[in-house]
């Protein structure tokens, strides 16, 4: 699931939980799912800084991204 999908799902879950007519069991299930989404999304935001790379085509036709300054 993309970051975007996770955030969207999270927003959906919050909206669903905000509506009162939800059984406690269903609510807890949604909450658990929300926590998972939240953890995944947060993890994506705390990834390491990425380097700038150049996409090169090798002589065998395989494409590879190598560091720009390498």
């Amino acid at each position, binding site marked *: 699931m993309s970051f975007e999908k996770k*955030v969207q799902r999270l927003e959906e879950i919050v909206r669903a*939980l905000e509506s*009162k007519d939800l059984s406690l069991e269903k609510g807890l299930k949604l*909450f658990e799912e929300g926590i998972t989404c939240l953890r995944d999304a*947060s993890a994506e*935001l705390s990834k390491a800084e*990425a380097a700038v790379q*150049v996409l090169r085509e090798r002589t065998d036709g395989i*494409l590879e991204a190598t560091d*720009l300054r390498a």
Partner: protein
Amino acid sequence: MNPRPARTATSSTGRSSASQPEPDALALFEDFDAETQAPPAPARPEGRARRPAGRSDEPGLSPESAISVATLTLATRDIIEGAVEPLWVRGEVVGLKEHRKGHWYFTLKDENAQIRCVMWATDARRALAAPDEGMTIIALGKLTVFAARGELQLRVLRIESSGDGLWRKAFEKIHKKLEAEGLFAAERKRPLPLLPSCVAVVTSTDGAALHDIVSVVQRRCPITRVVVAHAIVQGEDAPKSLVTALHRVARWGQADVVILGRGGGSREDLWAFNDERVVRAAAGMPVPVISAVGHEVDVTLCDLAADHRAATPSAAAEAAVPRLTDLVRHVRRLGEDLRDCANAQVESARQRLAAAGVGIARAASHRVERGRLTLEGIAGRLHALSPLATIARGYAVLTDDKGETVTSSSALAPGDAFVARVRDGRIHARTERTELLGEDQVE
């Protein structure tokens, strides 16, 4: 006449056409063979044609050695071609006709003069567009002679419009064609991803545009990977190079969004971004494309075909990636909302539970009360039925000395002891005598 490749100015020997596989006027001069136009032979020094008169055996110098018209015109052609380098000529285009094979025939004129021009299909194809009637152009051409008509002719190699006429015409032609195909339609525009994990940049690795894009991405969203697919961004090789780079990114398949662009430049510098092949490649990308061509110039066709248009490479980078701090804040807030909501859910459930408890207790106590009343009713009825009540009204219950209730006069004999139970106590007594009553007096 066949298209002939351009030749540079002759050397002093005039042998520039020595290697050309074509009829040579001076060879014909000797061969008198204008009809077959073969075989090619080395040109002779041009000076030879101007040899002083007097030697009657030389062709054309006596009635006996008269030359053909073809020989004359072809010799003239060779002299002219050999004498004049390709020149840039300015003039107004009149009567352009396109041959079915793609050659262009037209006249260049100004107020006082005109010259017939031909542009062979191979050269015409490289032109931006066919000039309009009356358009002033600058043509690079080689002066020659069209022997069949004995006309001076300019063999045009390249044309450029004096203003932006040709550019605009070429732009409009491609624009019209691609628009008709729906390449610029609003429905084709795709939304940009919220957080791309990889941005591909198709531009020159030497350009300022790349530097701008990289610095914006690294400032706003350093976790996003930037991958550059190098391309030549101006000049004749640019379209092919841009297409190759775009295809490379598409084939690689790891980019979530593509920035296609270069820094500002003249209309000519940016022309590759109007090239039909480049526009098609941009429109055909599997992921959204942000175009960032130039700063303030007119819109390019790539801008129109892209999913998102940015005025500058920096603006393109800002459109491509979010500000990471904003995103972190947003996700954190969502997390807080989530916990708040969950807490609210639990709290509301607890309240419901508490309310239910009160209800149950109330319902239960209600039942007890009703039971009590019922019980009282029963007790009342029970009391009414109790023999004690009868005793209270003045009756007595007799029991013999064994404790058996005495219900018959025959149960006691004179002298037998018995106990009479009355409302407030017992009376111990002895039987004096017994008497049996008649049937009619017994209940």
